């Protein structure tokens, strides 16, 4: 058998080669023509990790940090890595929890996840817990503090301006603004955080990591060539003066109202307070929802930005503008006088004036200084009835156009969201109110800032800028530069100079002179600042409210507008205090103190007593709570009604759908039967 070639060696060789060929063939098809395995392999083994860059910081005009980021720690646990002999008592002592809590958390962790994966044990450890844990950290293997970035407000000021961030909701994700967001992302929800979201958020990075079968991330995939690097958010530099803002918030404590201070030369907002304020640090971290609900329920409504959203009748503070329009259309000259005897009786109902002495309205300067109601009602009527206009409607339209140019009755375009535009009535408004049956007497209250005229404090402050600058203004805004670039495309619109209808400088000079007299010899003597020419106007706005079905005349709103210095205006300010009384009593001193603080960096000792009085005053109206509950009841009823309508519509639609379906089903049945 050992001699000569045995044919069976070939049979065996052929079997070997045959089987090997089958294997090769299978491999060939498996590796070249079944792409699904490639997709599956990537699905199971590649983990896309999204890295969020820190959001941009926000600085004030002097470079002080208002809003930045801080690191907090989440305590993570990997149950498998916990040693059997973990000293639970010591662990609980370090974290200041009891054993029961520990067991509960561990049970929840184990129910939720497999034991090789990291799960949160305590989210957002307190400073104390973190410090104590890290002292003994080496003892507690299996537990690991993981750092996380959250927003940090350096001082509890300017909360409503800076806004807050929160997780985007599923409804928000449907909107185009949030098209690049995903569930779990954070976005600015109000204030500057909302407005400058695009630049503050930066660009998130995506890192591709390989993961093992326990879903634990391992090495970078393909050495990281597919990764995109995260880009930090840009920093915002504001015009806001943190010291002035803090001072203003102190002055406004226990008062309801708002303060807006603008630099007339740039349109930059120096301070904006909506009182009562809240600590913005409440609206971050995991207690945000709870705190938000508490703030929302407060009757004083701290989340409502009164500076841009509340609309008040401006009262006497509108008088410079009434005069400005009257002078410019030529209805009166600066020397025009009116013989007021304590009331204005030219129309059917007499309008009271504070002053009775003769000659208190002998010319424009005197009339404004003494805030003569008769005078301004009269010149308003003269304006709308002016001979150059064919009718009172045309006159009113012209007046309306002037006011629109002062940015009254329309949005100023400030860079925080949800601004309100106020209301400036036009002929359409009165046509519908009075069925085309009205004349200048019907609307005379508008001349003294009552009636249908409503302005926001922001608009009032912006109006002061126009008078201070003698006819031009920049759109009021907060942000000076984005990422140290003052010419960022987002800020372009704030560099447009708005010129108001070519009113001559001389007209403005007359008004400015009159406003200077208001401080020096008129109603706002308390607003005088040593060494600075202040131009101002007080206001006392009447207002009513409906409480339990009765119309109640409420305490007047205390209003004040001013700018200083007259020669080289650096600050224009508007103060509105709800239901506080005379403008000269409360609003004027607050504005004056703020101007002094800003222009002189400190308040003189002489005014200490006044400062203390302002700081300590509590002017919250007793009706606030009643009115608030009434309003909330009304809102709840409205909401209920809306929901019911919606349910009704839904049920009708469902019934229709069912009918349609039945119809379709029966037609199918008929077809089958045929």
């Amino acid at each position: 058998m050992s001699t000569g070639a045995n044919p069976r060696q070939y049979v065996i060789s052929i079997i070997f080669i045959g089987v090997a060929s089958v294997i090769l063939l299978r491999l060939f098809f498996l590796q070249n023509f079944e792409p699904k395995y490639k997709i599956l392999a990537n699905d199971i083994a590649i983990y896309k990790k999204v890295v969020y860059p820190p959001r941009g910081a926000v600085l004030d005009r002097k470079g002080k940090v208002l809003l930045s980021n801080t690191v907090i720690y989440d305590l993570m646990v990997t149950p498998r890595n916990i040693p059997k002999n973990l000293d639970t008592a010591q662990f609980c002592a370090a974290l200041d929890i009891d054993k029961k809590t520990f067991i509960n958390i561990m049970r929840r962790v184990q129910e939720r996840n497999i034991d090789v994966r990291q799960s949160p044990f305590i989210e957002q450890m307190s400073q104390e817990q973190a410090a104590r844990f890290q002292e003994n950290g080496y003892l507690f293997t299996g537990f690991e503090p993981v750092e996380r970035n959250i927003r940090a407000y350096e001082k509890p000021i300017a909360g409503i301006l800076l806004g807050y961030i929160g997780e985007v909701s599923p409804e928000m994700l449907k909107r185009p603004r949030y098209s690049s967001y995903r569930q779990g992302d954070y976005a600015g929800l109000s204030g500057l955080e909302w407005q400058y979201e695009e630049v503050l958020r930066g660009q998130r990075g995506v890192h591709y990591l390989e993961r093992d079968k326990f879903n634990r991330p391992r090495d970078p995939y393909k050495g990281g060539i597919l990764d995109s690097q995260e880009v930090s958010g840009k920093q915002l530099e504001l015009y806001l003066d943190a010291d002035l803002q803090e001072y203003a918030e102190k002055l406004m404590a226990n008062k309801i109202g708002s303060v807006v201070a603008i630099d007339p030369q740039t349109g930059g907002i120096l301070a904006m307070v909506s009182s009562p304020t809240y600590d913005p640090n409440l609206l971050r971290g995991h207690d945000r929802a709870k705190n938000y609900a508490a703030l929302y329920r407060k009757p004083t409504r701290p989340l409502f930005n009164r500076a841009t959203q509340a609309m008040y009748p401006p009262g006497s503070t509108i008088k410079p503008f009434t005069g400005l329009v009257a002078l410019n259309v030529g209805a009166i000259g600066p020397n025009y006088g009116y013989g007021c005897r304590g009331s204005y009786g030219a129309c059917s109902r007499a309008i009271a004036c504070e002053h009775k002495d003769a000659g208190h309205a002998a010319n424009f300067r005197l009339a404004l200084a003494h805030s003569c109601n008769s005078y301004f009602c009269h010149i308003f009527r003269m304006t709308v009835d002016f001979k150059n206009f064919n009718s009172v409607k045309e006159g009113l339209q012209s007046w309306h156009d002037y006011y629109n140019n002062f940015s009254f009755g329309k949005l100023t375009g400030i860079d925080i969201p949800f601004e309100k535009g106020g209301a400036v009535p036009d002929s359409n408004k009165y046509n519908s109110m009075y069925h085309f049956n009205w004349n200048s007497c019907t609307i005379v209250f508008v001349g003294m800032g009552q009636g249908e005229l409503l302005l926001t404090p922001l608009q009032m402050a912006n109006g002061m800028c126009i008078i201070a600058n003698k006819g031009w203004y920049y759109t009021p805004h907060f942000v000076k530069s984005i990422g140290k670039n003052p010419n960022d495309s987002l800020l372009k619109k704030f560099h447009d100079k708005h010129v108001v209808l070519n009113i001559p400088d001389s007209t403005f000079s007359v008004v400015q002179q009159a406003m200077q007299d208001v401080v020096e010899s008129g109603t706002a003597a308390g607003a005088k600042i040593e060494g600075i020419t202040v131009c101002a106007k007080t206001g006392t706005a009447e207002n009513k409210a409906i409480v339990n079905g009765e119309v109640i005349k409420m305490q007047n709103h205390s209003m004040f507008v001013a700018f200083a210095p007259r020669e080289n205006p650096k600050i224009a300010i508007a103060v509105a205090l709800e239901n506080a009384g005379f403008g000269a009593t409360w609003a004027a001193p607050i504005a004056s103190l703020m101007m002094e603080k800003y222009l002189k960096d400190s308040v003189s000792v002489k005014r200490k007593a006044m400062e203390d009085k302002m700081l300590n005053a509590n002017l919250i109206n007793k009706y606030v709570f009643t009115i608030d509950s009434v309003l909330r009841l009304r809102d709840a009823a409205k909401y209920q009604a809306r929901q019911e309508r919606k349910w009704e519509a839904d049920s009708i639609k469902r019934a229709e759908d069912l009918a349609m379906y039945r119809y379709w089903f029966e037609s199918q049945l008929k077809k089958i039967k045929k």
Partner: protein
Amino acid sequence: MTSLRKALFYRIDGVVLLLYVMLVTVGIMAVFSVEHHTTDVSIFMMNKNYMKQFVWFGYSLLFGFVILLTDSKFFSSFAFLIYTIAIAVLVITIFAGVDVKGSRSWLGIGSFRFQPGEVAKIFTSMALAKYLSLPETNFKTLKDKLIAAAIAMAPAILILLQKETGLALVYFCFFLVMYREGLPNAILVIGFSLIGLVLASLLIERKTLFVVLTVLAILIGWLIRIPLRRRMAPRIILTVSFLFAVLFSQVAVPFVFKHVLQRHQIDRIYSTLGKEVPDEYDKTMVVGEDKKINSSEYNVLQSKIAIGSGGFWGKGFLNGTSTKNQFVPEQHTDFIFCAIGEQFGFIGSAGLVLLYISLILRIVFIAERQRSVFTRVYSYCVACILFFHFAVNISMTIGLMPVIGITLPFLSYGGSSLMSFSILIFILVRLDADRQALIR
């Protein structure tokens, strides 16, 4: 003495040794690739399996060197003695074995553990070679055939008793060796027919299969109607084989599935066929309960994902996302082929298959150039064992065969496995060096 050493050095077969070293190197590299992480401080970490494998390779070479220095007559002289010892050790293992995942096939001495079943292949090969090369053996007689079969099958039965089915199946490859030595051609026909019959009875419904078999029998009867009419033998053969086929498919297969095979084995077989396990074989099935996911399907799917995602050129060394991250179970031992398939693609895996088949065909070539029967039979044994391991292991990773726990020679991590295959090869090389001499 010097001249003899030199002569020995020139007589050993370089091709086999070269292929052997290449395969082991590929194996260490593959184990390295599935265990190395970029975060590792050093690549020389003694606690990692690839370093252990490297050390085992060193021991293997040392042992191989000793074998090369041994007189070739030693192996034939002591074949029966060592075989007897091996059988005794296998018997001891049944009772004293360490329990690993339900099987008692490992023997532990201190911290050192090895699998006697793995090593017994060498001694069975030698015993079989010795028996067939005995001058008094006449392989044409039925008695000698039965004795040879008994020598080959005894360890298999003992290993079956240790519940290590995969390893026991390896011993069936000795029938191929016996075929070379003179088993009738019919053994191949019967073998392949049996495989076909098993597959058919699993794939086709039982009653349909009965009809098919009957039709087939009538058809064959009609085709060979002339010999049938003339002689008795064909009639008997046809009737017996028909009856056997029917009984086998209708009674034996269901019996084995119901009473012999275990749950996981049934799972593996049916998942390879791509079918659901029928209710009658499903032992853990509770009425009204949903079917559980077939666990072996997961292994094979992960293995196919790894190999299939490699593509033509592969993902590159150390870039295997599936194998590096432990998605494939047993990927450093039984499923090591995944590492090659994923990282080196079709090119790499085809290269590996070619490497194996060249080694096996080279051994067949060596076998045929021997003067002594002992060496020839032994060489065939080595070739068949290697072939069986290689074919079954790769087939199971790509889903051509049910998952059977046997290793890929030279590549899989494991001291017993590497050591025993190295000894097989080195004894072969030693015997081949004396191919001009007659060894009995």
